[in-house]
């Protein structure tokens, strides 16, 4: 995890002028981190695949989601640079995820409330074929 900070922007070729308008301090991700994350993502994919061979019942879905979330965290932190960016960007991202969770969660609560009315093996809502 080398901390390569570099002024990636034009380093103020003109001496005169705003010092603050020339420097752009960004973190440049090292090849080691990039390759490491890539390896972790491939490993995660292999794990997700392998996880279907074992039977955990409902646990399979949770395991698959846990692995997918771990992969997503890797992508967001390193590839999407959130680890080194202003925390506010990560905050914005998390708020979006939270909203999706609320949305899905409450929709599921509602669905479960109507569960007794469901006709087994009959999925309603869309015009069936035939």
């Amino acid at each position: 995890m080398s901390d390569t900070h570099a002024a990636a922007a034009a380093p103020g070729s003109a001496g005169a002028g705003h010092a603050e308008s020339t420097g752009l301090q960004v973190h440049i991700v090292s090849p080691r981190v990039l390759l490491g994350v890539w390896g972790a993502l491939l490993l995660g994919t292999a794990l997700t695949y392998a996880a279907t061979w074992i039977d955990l019942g409902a646990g399979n879905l949770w395991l698959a989601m846990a692995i997918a979330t771990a992969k997503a965290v890797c992508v967001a932190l390193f590839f999407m640079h959130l680890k080194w960016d202003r925390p506010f960007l990560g905050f914005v991202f998390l708020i979006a995820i939270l909203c999706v969770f609320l949305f899905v969660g409450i929709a599921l609560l509602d669905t479960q409330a109507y569960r007794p009315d469901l006709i087994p093996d009959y999925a309603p809502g869309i015009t069936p074929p035939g």
Partner: protein
Amino acid sequence: MTRAPERPAAHDHVPHLAHHFRSLQQQYDAAKLGMWLFLVTEILLFGGLFCAYAVYRSSHPEVFVYAHRFLDKTLGGLNTVILICSSLTMAWAVRAAQLRNRRQLALLLAATFICACGFLGIKTVEYHAKWKHGLLWGQRYQPVEHTADQAPADNAPLAPAPTAVPPGAGADRSLLPAPGKAPAGLAAGEALTARSHDPGNVPRNVHLFFGIYFVMTGLHGLHVIAGMVLIGWLFVRTLRGEFGDGYFTPVDLGGLYWHLVDLIWIFLFPLLYLIH
């Protein structure tokens, strides 16, 4: 690349700095925040589809367990690997742009583009198989019947097996649609054919799964196409030498978008292809 026609004289020596920003840093931060806000809307857009998925899967798990076998895990897994590799090349492209390495940047953008082509190519193969076998959405779900050249195990007469509506279900039966045809679509992957048809117990309304499958992967595919346009544009700008002097914001933001497309696929793959 003149972004603002008029800028104060004090900014003239700083390329790419629009006049309404005080500094490159401020401009960069604003651009990045704007991109993240856009990504948030994308997450919410896909969130609606994930919600539909969750509701239907929780209500009718049997449809998902049955229908996911028609998806080719190998092709789906291959596409996952391709997208992960393209994310690597894209992240590395941002690094190259930051280090002002134009040649490497162009090569990495081209590699990302090729990965995206591979992804869409495989997706086309998958869609084509679904189309051929009538495994589509809504009323277009008309699975092709088995043929004699199938594996012996598949030659068993297909029980129409629409699970009977329990008498106590309290529903007016006359409102229910007639049971569909025996859903006897061909499995997409040859390896799957033997497992794909447990005798009997073919659930009703399998078309729901394919509706969700096509909308989710279709919208994702559109995002891949948009990403390819974006990467192509970045590539052209790179060849024109616009990212050689330390200006890399478009590459950075394009990368963010591309990683989000990857991120969504990371969830789509297990949810659609790897149902247990």
